[in-house]
């Protein structure tokens, strides 16, 4: 990186020093072949904080949160989740995945299992819970996302909004310390987006640590503690929602917001 000096100093998206840091990312770089997708990312998240990542498509926001639980492998930099550094160590990877829940754009429910089986699979196999306990917790979270009556159906029989809520319940049942949301509402019909967002809002209010990649600016404004704007693999601007939506600093951010708001 011969011309690193001429590049602008990377933005540090550190959390305010108050809370205890649960995610710390330092100098994160990632390449797909020759394509540099993540460039010198620095980001940290406090416990109980909701960080919303926005930016145009292809800006690397999804890749960023997929790096946090090693769905993508980073090549440079340091990722620490709940005090565990993400390295090539199998044990570290397993531990971090256990402690982070993830919700995908396309739900990724397992179509050959019932809703209940979808939810209890990981707790029984990974956490080694008894089946009865897993089912009890599963029903609790299904209740919480508002679809207790669908436990014995197959994912194919549910609507998109219901599926995504099941996916959230599935992640929550593992009792994660962090929830990662990868554009959870992008694949949904407008009329059901609300029900999923409501679940997320409730979750945030209960103090769950969340990193959310989304295009829902309303959600960002309402529940986000901090908003991170990414473009071309870099963090362009970080700030509180008020700062962000009322008075963004960077020209790039302004032009992005003007297009979508």
């Amino acid at each position, binding site marked *: *990186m011969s*011309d690193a000096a001429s*590049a602008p100093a990377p933005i540090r998206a550190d959390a305010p020093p108050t809370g205890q840091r649960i995610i710390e990312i330092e100098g994160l770089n990632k*390449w797909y072949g*020759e394509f*540099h997708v993540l460039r010198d990312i620095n980001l940290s998240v406090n416990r109980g904080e909701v960080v919303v990542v926005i930016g145009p498509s292809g800006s690397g926001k999804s890749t960023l949160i997929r790096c946090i639980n090693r769905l993508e492998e980073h090549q440079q930099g340091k990722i620490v989740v709940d005090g565990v550094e*993400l390295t090539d*160590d*199998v*044990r570290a990877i397993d531990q971090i995945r256990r402690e982070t829940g993830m919700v995908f754009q396309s739900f990724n429910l397992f179509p050959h299992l019932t809703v209940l089986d979808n939810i209890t699979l990981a707790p029984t196999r990974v956490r080694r819970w008894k089946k009865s306990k897993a089912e009890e917790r599963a029903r609790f979270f299904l209740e919480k996302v508002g679809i207790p009556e669908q436990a014995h159906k197959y994912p194919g029989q549910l609507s998109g909004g219901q599926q995504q809520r099941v996916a959230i319940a599935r992640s929550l049942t593992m009792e994660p310390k962090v929830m990662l949301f990868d554009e959870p509402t992008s694949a949904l019909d407008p009329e059901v987006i609300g029900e999923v967002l409501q679940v997320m809002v409730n979750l945030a209010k209960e103090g769950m640590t969340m990193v959310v990649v989304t295009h829902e600016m309303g959600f960002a404004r309402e529940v986000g503690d901090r908003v991170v704007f990414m473009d071309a693999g870099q963090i362009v601007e970080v700030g509180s929602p008020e700062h962000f939506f009322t008075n963004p600093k960077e020209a790039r951010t302004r032009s992005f917001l003007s297009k979508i708001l």
Partner: protein
Amino acid sequence: MQPGKPNVSASTAVVPFWRNVKIIGVIAQFVFVIALVAGVGILVNNVVTALAKANLPADFSFLGKPAGIPIAERAIPYQVTDTYARALLIGFLNTLKVAIVGVVLATVIGVLMGVMRLSSNWLVRTMASVYVEVLRNIPLAVQIVFWYSAVLLPFPPRISDPIALPGGLIMSNVGLAFPFLYPTYRFAVWVPYLVAAAVLAGVAWWWRRRTLAKADRVGSVWPFPVVTFLVVAGMGLGLSYVGRSVPSDLTFTFEADRGRGTTAFVVDGKSRPAAFVPVTIEIEKASLTVSSQNLVESRQDVRGSVRFPLMRENEADAFEFAFADAEAAEERGLQLSFDKYPSVATIYVDRNGNGRFDAGEDVDPATNRGYGGVDVVMTVTNFRRTLVSDRDGQVRTPTFKHADDVAAAAVEESAAPRAGTRFSAFGQAATATVSESALSAKTAIQPVGALVLSRAYVPVSNYEGGMRLTVNYLALLLALVVYTSAFIAEIVRGGILAVPKGQREAARAIGLSGTQTFSLIIFPQAMRIVLPPMISQYLNLTKNSSLASLAGYAELFVIASVVSNQTGAAIPIALLLIGSYLVISLAFSLVLNQVNARLALVER
């Protein structure tokens, strides 16, 4: 920021190697490779030891030895004294011959059947369904046996009475033969023109594209290079006929008694066969003796018919027919009735005396069979025929005898080999005497251009000249084509059904007719879907051709197993076979990738 790729891992923390994902992978591979090498090593060692113990060849040195296997069906010259390697090569070429033609035909029939299965006509639809279901649910081995011994052998007429169709096509249960253009020894004259034609065609293509591009016009490009090529190449072909003459070192030797001759170049006393040379043979007067036969064909009787080699009436000034033993024939009241003058006749007894053959008169009341085993002599005057020698420089005519030597050779009685029989044919050949007086013929070599049209004919009991497809080849081909086409039909049907309904609706909405919708919109898209499974069917067809032995076709696997039986070199031959089949597989994969790449390009 300039992307630069680090070559070290991001992490600085020390991780024990048994927990490191990357190192685990390396170790797993390492263990796997060691286990594999050890396992394979043990197995190979076993084989080598066993082979050495059994004194079986484990290398390829046997390939250079003379094979001694007679092979009739071949694309390149071959003699029994040639090597095993050449015999195997012929097998490989024969595999290709059946595979390539089979693939083309199976595609045509399969697509047709696939479309028929979606026909709106109930009967057609049902017939196509029955076709597909029956054929793909019966083992191919059974089908090959069926086509060969239940259809192609019994139903077409025998070679002695072939069907001669217009255009020079001849059909019988020995196979199919038709005229074919072959390159002659003067082909080299044409080659520069062909090269020039190709170059000019390229230029024409380039020029046409450029002018179109310049004028920013849409127009067809292909007619220009094609016409250029045809004109230049045609000119060259025409020129190759100008000033043609027979080279002085080209000779033609002909043994009229044996009915065969050879065209050859003789240079310094050494002769080299000359392929595809047209020659004319004239025989002033000659005779041919043939016995009448009682045949049972596909469970039906054919009674007392005489079949002379296929001849046209204009090939001789006169044909005369007589019973070899005229007195005996007259005593029995035998007469000849011509079915196809001058080649096929029935022997009958004119019981009602009306001078013509009536139903039932060909049955001998004494035996209830026809008048078989009666010799009939045909005498031809001024027989002449122009022939083209084959790939090996061979020419064949009917085996005429001298016209004066009418007495037929005495037919020896059937006898099982007895005590005292010699165990070598060479001894017998030495004692055999040729009693007939020599038959002479006038011969001439015809000048040629770059190409010569070789016609098929039947001199004795086989096709000569032209392009010949044996019944064995046809049976195998038919079975493979029909069997594979059933699978292709299903693939095509699936492909057509897989084209989104919206495509049809859109096509109809812009005013295309039903046929246009199908041929312009649905079918091209379906073809794109079906290509990969089709290629795998093509591969299956090629591999299935290894069942050729069931139809007596000398394909690679057949020849390889003969060679293996003779030499015991099972392992080298197995390796050769695997290699050959992989080459074919790879070729198909290459084609698939090419076509896929093209289609993908079109898609964007």
